[in-house]
Structure formats: structure tokens, C-alpha cells
């Protein structure tokens, strides 16, 4: 059986250091297995957040060899084992301890986004009809497991720390899922431009690259939302026509 070295960050908000743990590894092992093994036998108090171990809950986000990943979905045979494997917490969020960060900011952001607001039911029995084609578009966004890896890698948050002015890719995906919902009638364009700061995103696509659910965050969520903001606030020809015709052509925009 092979042996690998795991260089795991240990510490809290007051500071810390990388420590090396040597471990026998077996076929099919993922990074989270290694962390658990180390926890059971070498470092009981090693803090790690996890739930499902199958890429569905998005709890075990970390940076492995410098790349943001889910520990439970990163197999050791995908990593070079001749050098130590570094495992460290997400950098964008305040550290709690070891591999656990304080992601509570994300929960506060979501509360501020205008919630889903359905149109009146289509039928007297209180039901709606939707076609699969329309549903497919937002089901992509509903795959989001809220691992916050996209938030972690976004330079607007990671490097520029604009947490107060910018909600981050996760919440653009969330706004897109609400806004493109076939039943939803809420208007969120003004917030997108101002409170949510979509203008700060300059489409580097880092978020899309790290998404474990392979959601095309930039192309399918952020760019269409940016277009909406542009149409509303910066397309003067359209604004002129709308005023002339006196109608808010939101539905037509949505269905473009």
C-alpha cells in the first residue's frame, strides 16, 4: 500500500501553520477519506465540515494543492502523490478553525434577495403548467449545492473584498433561477445593478471553472443578467421606444 503526505493547515483566526501527516492510502480514496483517517488516528480535533461525502451537500469545500474543490469528490489518484498534498481552508471567508470557514455572510446575502413571487395559478385548482424546455433552463441553476467555491474563487470577493457591494456568482445564479422561473413575476433588475453589484463582474469565468456541478455560471446566469441591466439602464434606443409605447416589455425580454 502506498503512503502519501498531507500538508494540512492547522490553526484559527489568531494564526496557524501547515502540518504534515503521513498516511497509508488505498484505491479509490478521496481527500476527505484521508482527512477523516488523520482525524481518527492522529489529530482528533482537526476541524472539517462535511455531510454527505458524495458531492451533494457542498459542505467540504477547501483548497487542495491550491485549487478550490470538494474534498469528497477529489480522488487521490488525480493528484501527484510524490509531493505533499496541501489542504487548506477557503481564503475568501473568515477562518473558524483548521479547514472550517465562516460562510454565514452567504446566508445573509440570500435573505436580502427578493424572493420568488409566482403569478396567479393557471387553473382554478391552484396549479400551473410549465413546459420542460422552460424548466430545463433553471433546473441547471437549481443544481447548485451552495458549496461557495465560486464565491471563494471570485476575485471581486477574494482579492478586492467587496462583500458589501457585490453578492458574488452564487447569488447571480440564484437571482437568475428566480428571474428565469416560468412562474415568477418579480422585478429584480434595479437590485442587480445597485445593491447586488453585477457591474463588478468582469467575466473572468473563474467561478464557472470551479463549479462542481458544472453550472455554466458566467454564460447562462451572469451574462443574461448583465444584458438585462444593460437593456434597462443603458440601451437608450430601447428606453426611448418603451417610453414612447408606454409599456414595460419585461416578458418579451425574458423570452428573447
Amino acid at each position, binding site marked *: 500500500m502506498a503512503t502519501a503526505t498531507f500538508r494540512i493547515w492547522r490553526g*484559527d483566526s489568531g494564526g496557524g501553520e501547515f502540518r504534515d501527516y503521513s498516511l497509508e492510502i*488505498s*484505491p*479509490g*480514496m*478521496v481527500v476527505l*477519506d484521508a482527512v477523516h483517517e488523520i*482525524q*481518527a*488516528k492522529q489529530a*482528533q*480535533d*482537526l*476541524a*472539517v*465540515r*462535511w*455531510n*454527505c*461525502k*458524495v*458531492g*451533494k*451537500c*457542498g*459542505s467540504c469545500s477547501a483548497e487542495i494543492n491550491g485549487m478550490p474543490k470538494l474534498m469528497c*469528490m477529489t*480522488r487521490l489518484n488525480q493528484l501527484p502523490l510524490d509531493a505533499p498534498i496541501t489542504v487548506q481552508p477557503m481564503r475568501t471567508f473568515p477562518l*473558524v*478553525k*483548521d479547514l*472550517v470557514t*465562516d*460562510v*454565514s455572510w452567504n*446566508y445573509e446575502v*440570500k*435573505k436580502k434577495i427578493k*424572493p*420568488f413571487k*409566482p403569478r396567479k*395559478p393557471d387553473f382554478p385548482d*391552484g*396549479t*400551473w*403548467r*410549465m*413546459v*420542460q424546455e422552460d*424548466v430545463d433552463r*433553471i*433546473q441547471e441553476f*437549481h*443544481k447548485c*449545492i*451552495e458549496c461557495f467555491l465560486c464565491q471563494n474563487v471570485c476575485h471581486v470577493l477574494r482579492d478586492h473584498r467587496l462583500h458589501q457591494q457585490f453578492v458574488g456568482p452564487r447569488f447571480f445564479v440564484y437571482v437568475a433561477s*428566480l428571474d428565469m*422561473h416560468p*412562474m*415568477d413575476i418579480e422585478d429584480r433588475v434595479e437590485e442587480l445593478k445597485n445593491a447586488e453589484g453585477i457591474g463588478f463582474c468582469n467575466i473572468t469565468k473563474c467561478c464557472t471553472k470551479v463549479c462542481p456541478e458544472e453550472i455554466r455560471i458566467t454564460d447562462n446566469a451572469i451574462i443574461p443578467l448583465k444584458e438585462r441591466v444593460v437593456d434597462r439602464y443603458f440601451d437608450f434606443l430601447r428606453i426611448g421606444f418603451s417610453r414612447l409605447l408606454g409599456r414595460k416589455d419585461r416578458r418579451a425580454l425574458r423570452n428573447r
Partner: protein
Amino acid sequence: MPEYQVHEHDVLVIGAGGAGLRAAIAASAAGVSVGIVTKSLLGKAHTVMAEGGIAAALANVDERDNWKVHFADTMRGGQYLNEPRMAQIHAQEAPDCVRELEAWGAVFDRTAQGKILQRNFGGHKYPRLAHVGDRTGLEMIRTLQDYGIHQGIDVHMECVVITLLKDGDRVVGAFGYDRERGRFQLYHARAVVLATGGIGRAYKITSNSWEYTADGLALAYRAGAELKDMEFVQFHPTGMVWPPSVRGILVTEGVRGEGGTLKNKDGRRFMFDDIPPLYKNQTADNAEEGWRYTQGDRSARRPPELLTRDHVARAIVREVREGRGSPHGGVFLDIAWIREKMPHSAEHIKRKLPSMYHQFKQLADIDITKEPMEVGPTTHYVMGGVRVHPETQMSTVPGLFAAGECAAGLHGANRLGGNSLSDLLVFGKRAGAHAAAFAQEHQAGQVSAEEVGAAARQALEPFDRPSGESPFLIQRDLQETMQDLVGIVRREEDMHRALEVIEQLGERRRRAGVVGNREYNPGWHTALDLSNLLLISEAITRAAIERKESRGAHFRDDYPGRDDASGKSNLIIRQGPDGKMQIARKPLPELPAELKQIVEEMK
């Protein structure tokens, strides 16, 4: 006197999976103040892993479906040990609960007419599961989470309850700690809803998340509530078996619902070999008919792969034991074969089972559109739990409610797939509403400072023994013991041995120690979880010894047949006055004439 932070709520919900969130929303809608305590971050509970769908007789795909058929299917699946009134309420109220979820923003797959699509699942006569590909649980929990955050509910994330507090007979609060800093938390509440899920982490091979450490059941038991039917632990027939690190991870029954077949190493489709008499009339007798059923042919009967989970799990165990298993000790589950039946089958599979495709590709290097999967049984669900009133979900302790997996009654001896998500919605809602009503009718109670102090001191004891044994290793030994001795096939002498081991593990737990401090210390958390796991493992084992027959998920090698006398009672466990576990038989409630007639008609 230990320091603690105090929180006041009318209703305290413990657990933030489907049942807990639905209960909190219902209680909040009734106008009381609500707090939720969750061991994890919001939206990460085990519900997120549910794949198949929500069983509800919407009759969108087959208009022959209705609540009576769903009721009869549930009772037959539970081998008639179900609480009939719960099964009735569940079947009647599930459709509205699904529609409610849609009104809150959930987006289910659609029929050609634009209605909510429904899929086939084991034990359900008609396609009944409202679903979102194979990630229905995520859709459900996220919808409840996103709707719930605007309802004025206080969420205590990453907090753990270690004991319930009583004033006389009544539950009046809870005491616990936050994982992040390890500070103690005292929650005053006029009513408490337990929605803590199951017990899967008592077993080595399980589909459950780490949180499934039997907390709600243990809290209820220690508070004087009764537990019911603890012997019925469901082993889902299809968990991953390879590679070892993913052993137990669920492979949704939806694979079989979409036409997947089970084969042994000789390529034989063994499920046709043994079809139980109870299901003979409803099961296809050839492969062609089974395929047609999965593709929506209403004149066809379901393939034997869609028999109930207990039966399929045992058939797989039989193949493996008799030397016909796959290389890694399971059998083959094949969905790739449907390329013989349809063009573009790979795209079809990826669309219907996206999460399974992803899971096997990433974790096992297997493309399920081209190759079969290797699968075997995995601990999945506990049908037993806190005994509750079927209408209100209140336990035998006033002010203490339970819903979802930690409550017993709906599923009897075996749960049908899809009935769990509907259970969470229907009874989560009821528990929340009735807890709110209870809170409105009762004044706040008094909490004993002594009791709180004792609980805090006890919780901190492991820190006094920094050189004590690692709690993780004790948990591992418990998991091995339950897997080997109280698993899918059970024997009297094995289970007596298990009781001895559990007692020894209890002693080891009392000597276990933790290092470090109280801040986010998984060793400490595990040491505390262990006492719940050990207690409930004992309850499972005692009940399994007591039921000397094979029925549903409970299979006794030494009593392989069904015993009519045993089949007429539930097993009730409570703490006796001497502090020891007591077990008693409780005759089944009489089936009302109206329900009896439904059961007879649907046979």
C-alpha cells in the same frame, strides 16, 4: 454554574431537513415564534441526498391513481404494521403538499401537458413520484430553505442539542452547544419538534450523512417518550460497493424505475426467480413486459426489480452468499442495456439520472451509459422511531412532537421509496401546526438550573481525559458490530453477542477522551454523539431479538417465516423506573371498516 446563552422561542424545532423546515414554516404560519437548531449549515441536511422523488397520488401520469391506491400500496409495503390513520392522512395530504412546494418555487420535471411528471418506483402501483431528475431532495430542501428564510424563523446553525428539559411531565426546552465555539446554549420553548432523521451512522455501510446519529430518538427516550418498531431498519438494495471509500453511497431506485435491471455474475436476471405471493398479481413474468412498464405502458405489470426494497435487498444478499455476486461483493445494476431499446440512450440516461451519471463517473471511473454498476445493500432508513399520535404527531410526552424519519408509524415494517419525502412534508407540516397550537395553549415552563448544570458538566467530562481512547475508533467498532451482528440477516446468538459488545463499548465511551479545546472539535462532538448511537443501537438490537419472525426489513435466519401472532403487534420500548430499557408488545390498532375495504379491494 456553567455559562450559557439563552434563547426564547414558542416552538423549537430540532433538525433542519425536510421535516424540520416544513414544521418550522407551519409553526411560523400559525403565528408563534420559531427557532430551528441544526447540527449542520442550513440546507445541508440528509434530505439533500434524497434522489428519487416525492410519492403523491397526483394522477398526472396515470389517472387511475388516487389516495386509496397509495394508501393500500403503503400498507402492503409495510406488511400491515403501519399506523393506518397515518398512512391514510399521508396518502390524502401528499398531493397538496407537493403543489404547495411548487407554489414556493420548486420546479419539477414536466409531462407533455406541462403538469408535474411522475415516475415509477418500487411498490407503487402507478407512476407516482414527483421528481427533479435524480436530485429531488436538493430541490425540496432548497425550496423550503429559501421560502423559510423569509418567514421570520430563527436558525441556530451548527448547534447541537444534548438534552431536553422538562417541567413536570412537559417538555419546556432544550440544552446544547454551538459547534463553532463550543459555548452552551439554553433554548426555552413551549413545544419542541424533533426532526432529527435516522440512525444510519450506527452501521458501517450506510447511505446516511454523518448527522444520522439517532439524536432525536435518544433525546425523546431519555425524556420519557416511547419508541416503536426499532427492529425495522431498511437496507436499500442498491448502494455503491466499489471503490471501498464510497461503499454504501446510494444508487437511486430511479435507475430501476427507468428500466435498469439486476444481474448476477452469470448475467442472469435473478429477480424473476423469486416473486413473493403478495405481489404475484402485480409483477411482470417476463422481461419484455417489465420493460414496457418502465416506459409507461399501462397494460404492463412492473418488473421484479421494482418489488419492495426489503425483498430486493435480500435477493441480492442471496446471490452474493451463493457465490454469484460481482467481483467486489455486490451484483450488477445495468441501465446501459437500454441502448438496445432506444436511440440516443446515453443522452436519455444523462437526462433522467444526471446525478448518478456524475457520481459513478467521478468516484468510480464508470460511465453508466456504457457499463453496468456494481451495487449491494446499504443501511438507509429506520422505519421505527418516536411513537406519535397519528393526527398531531405529539409523542407520549406532552409538548414533545416528532416528524419525519425520527417518528414511527407511517411505514410499518418497510418503507416504499418516495414515501419518505412525502412523509416529511405531510407530517412536518402537521407537527409544526400542532406544536404551535400547543405552545399557544400553554404557558412557558420552568427550567431546572441543576439539571442544566449537570448536563453541562457531563458534556465536558471527555476533556478531563486527554489521553483517553479516540471516540472515532469506538464509533467504528460500533459500526462493525451493528453491521455484522444486527444487519440484513439476523440470528439470536449474534444479537445477544451484539448486546454484550454494545455494553463494552459503553464502558469504553465513558473512558474516552478528547484533546484540544471546545472550539469546533470533532473528537468532542463524536464523543457526545456516541452516547445516542449506543443507546439506540441497543434499542434496535433488543427489538430485533424480541421479534421472532421475518417481516419486511427485519429478516431472521432462525425464524425465516412470518408469524401471524407477532404480526399483530408493534414493539414499544421505553425507559423503565429502574433506568433499564423495557420492551413490550402493543396490539395493532383495529383497521376501520372503510380502510379495511380499501385494502381488500386493492389486493
